[in-house]
């Protein structure tokens, strides 16, 4: 395996692994707060039981997220010293701030977990707020740093020397609002569907008690609000990309030639060696309209960029983008379908709807992963867009292939064990709630 490929594979694996836990770190505290708040309002113990079970799962997810985050902070230096040297001095501020947000999240999570039976219900609920706020703040800071990698600002580059550094201008680069919002909504949405998925599995196994119904209803309520918002933010982010990274836009949309009034490609795969997108269906003028608010605007094509500046991964970018958008469309449709049918189905959703809901959780997580592949593959060959190429940022130390193999093995074992443990945790309503039911079922 090539040196650069091994390094990128390891970084990509670490990030993809960390992402699925970080997504819960952003989303699950909010779900716990809502459920616990419902309990405070209604006094219904089912809500409290839900929040408490989620907090238990969250403790595991947070610990794995902390460890996988430690790995990434190491790898920034071990794999990408060239990147660290430049990025550290310009966009260091959000990294430091993220450290504090993570610290606060850990502290209040400790209070929240150990305060279940020790704090007053109200004080306990309030102790969850800093957890949720700092979880979202962490995502905000880290994605801001990534937005800077896409649209670097806040410095002057003259003859290879970086001067006039302005950390605040770097922080508030043009891409920060849309990119951070898209990530935060994506994390909340994935958590909502993830929670839904767990209770849909329970219902399929015949557990149609209040515990499962409320868990599922809460997830779907959150999804109903979040899914349209995510669609809107995604559209705005597309415009940010169009403004600042035309080569990435061309790869995302499978746009080969420069065109006035460009159409939206359905299909249109940028296969290496082909001059045109293959397997295509076009809707005239829509791409120009979506990207630039003008049906006759010019969209620059992939082929017009110098070979050295084209992403070598145009096809994965396009496929990831189609996957993400496809999953998003499916989730919105599923949400509408669920709420339309809800009144008619007194006993909860039917079997087919439940099966779709089960699939929705993993799919929503996959959409997050695919979204990151769009932005990371799409930025290649740059690590800092227009400033530093990825092959100049990689370490010169040997042995990356062997180290990647070792880490990959650890990740596989770790993922398998985490899934196995979480499945054991999700084994129906707590026994206290089941006490009224036949004990033979619990056994």
């Amino acid at each position, binding site marked *: 395996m090539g040196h650069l490929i091994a390094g990128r594979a390891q970084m990509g694996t670490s990030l993809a692994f960390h992402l699925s836990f970080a997504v819960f770190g952003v989303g699950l505290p909010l779900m716990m707060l809502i459920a616990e708040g419902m309990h405070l309002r209604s006094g219904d113990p089912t809500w409290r039981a839900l929040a408490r079970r989620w907090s238990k799962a969250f403790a595991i997810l947070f610990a*794995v997220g902390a460890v996988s985050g430690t790995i990434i902070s190491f790898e920034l230096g071990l794999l990408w010293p060239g990147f660290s040297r430049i990025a550290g*001095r310009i966009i260091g501020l959000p990294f430091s701030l993220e450290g504090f947000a*993570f*610290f606060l999240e850990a502290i209040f999570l*400790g209070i929240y977990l*150990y305060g279940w039976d020790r704090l007053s219900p109200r004080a306990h609920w309030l102790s969850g707020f800093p957890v949720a706020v700092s979880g979202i703040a962490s995502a905000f800071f880290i994605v801001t740093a990534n937005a800077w990698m896409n649209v670097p600002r806040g410095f002057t580059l003259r003859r290879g020397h970086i001067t006039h550094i302005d950390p605040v201008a770097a922080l508030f680069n043009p891409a920060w609002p849309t990119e951070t919002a898209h990530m935060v909504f994506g994390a909340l949405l994935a958590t909502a569907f993830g929670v839904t998925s767990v209770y849909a599995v329970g219902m399929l196994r015949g557990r149609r008690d209040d515990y499962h119904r409320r868990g599922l209803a809460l997830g779907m309520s959150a999804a109903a609000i979040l899914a349209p918002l995510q669609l809107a933010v995604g559209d705005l982010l597309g415009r940010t990309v169009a403004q600042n990274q035309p080569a990435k836009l061309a790869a995302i949309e499978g746009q080969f030639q420069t065109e006035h009034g460009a159409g939206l490609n359905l299909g249109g795969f940028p296969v290496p060696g082909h001059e045109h997108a293959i397997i295509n269906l076009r809707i005239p003028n829509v791409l120009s309209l979506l990207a630039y608010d003008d049906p006759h605007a010019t969209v620059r094509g992939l082929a017009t960029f110098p070979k050295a500046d084209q992403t070598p991964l145009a096809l994965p970018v396009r496929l990831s983008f189609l996957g993400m958008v496809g999953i998003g469309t499916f989730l919105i449709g599923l949400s509408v379908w669920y709420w339309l049918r809800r009144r008619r189905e007194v006993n909860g959703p039917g079997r087919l709807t439940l099966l779709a809901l089960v699939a929705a959780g993993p799919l929503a997580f996959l959409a997050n992963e695919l979204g990151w592949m769009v932005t990371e593959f799409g930025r290649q060959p740059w690590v800092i867009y227009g400033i530093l190429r990825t092959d100049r940022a990689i370490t010169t*130390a040997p042995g990356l292939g062997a*180290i990647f193999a070792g880490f990959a093995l650890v990740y596989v074992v770790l993922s398998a064990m985490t899934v196995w443990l979480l499945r054991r945790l999700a084994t129906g309503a707590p026994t206290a709630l089941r006490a009224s039911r036949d004990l033979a079922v619990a056994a």
Partner: protein
Amino acid sequence: MTLADVLIAVIWSGLTAYAVLGGADFGAGVLHLISPTHLAGRHRQESITAAIGPAWEANHVWLIFVLTGLLTMFPDAFAALGSAVLAPASLVLVAIVIRGAALAFGGQLTVADGLLRPVRVAFGLASAVAPLVMGALAGGLARQRVIVDSGHVRSGGGTALWLGWFELTTGLMALAACTTVAAVLLAARSSGRGEERLARGFRVHAMWATAATATLAAIALGLSSTDAPRLFSGLTGRGLPAVIGAFGALAATVAALRLRRDRWARGAAVLAMAGLVWGWGLAQFPRLVGPRVTVASSAAPPAELHAIAIALGAGALLLLPSLWLLHVAFRRAAAEVTR
């Protein structure tokens, strides 16, 4: 004193916090490993996992603080370090990952699962490997021989950086120091809860670990006079107060343990660990990585340093009351348990 000097002192304080708190976690894993398998040993193991429980892997936050601190305030030092330490740092990482995962999984497993024993052994071994390699790496870096030139390691890198007699000594010293802190903390915790039998066992471990730390520290100092002259002149110069403080605190730890003053022993052991970390830091100040990368040469530009200094201050204003709140909540919880 420049702003960069102040900030490297802040980072070094974070490293000290990691050495004490993270070190206690690693040491607890080692004690867990060497606990006998009969009933008394199992009590000891349960007491250890219960003590780590609340903090769990959150202590790695200090390591992340140190790394992001270097990345953002001393980017050239971070990059040079990254270029030089790929193999040993990866080893440390794998150990940290296995340790954290084993702890998380162990809490969910029961004896009936069959996986419990291998998971526990993995937890103990990984807990020993991490401080051993980190100590060896620290020893190698303290010799100030590695030369990194714009991303290329010119000399003193590779295995020469962390495999050698001096590095083995500092690695074992780190392992012993972590075990000391853990055993002393656990002794204080046990006697505070009135579990005198457990406390006695931990005191014995603490005594041996303290003696081992002192012996290894003396050997390392002796070796450095021939193997690492730069470090030796630093340790006997600027770092001398910290070195004397470390040896004094180690002696005080043993004395307090003999008198069964567990809380005093706890304070002394923490001071000893701090003395070792600061002795190293002061001995090589202002050099950070090898002879060329110094505090002044690797610091980020002033605008960035100022922004981060302000962020650090504001963050501390949020963090300190939160930590206090956590402390109060746990104290109340502990009081309720004993009632």
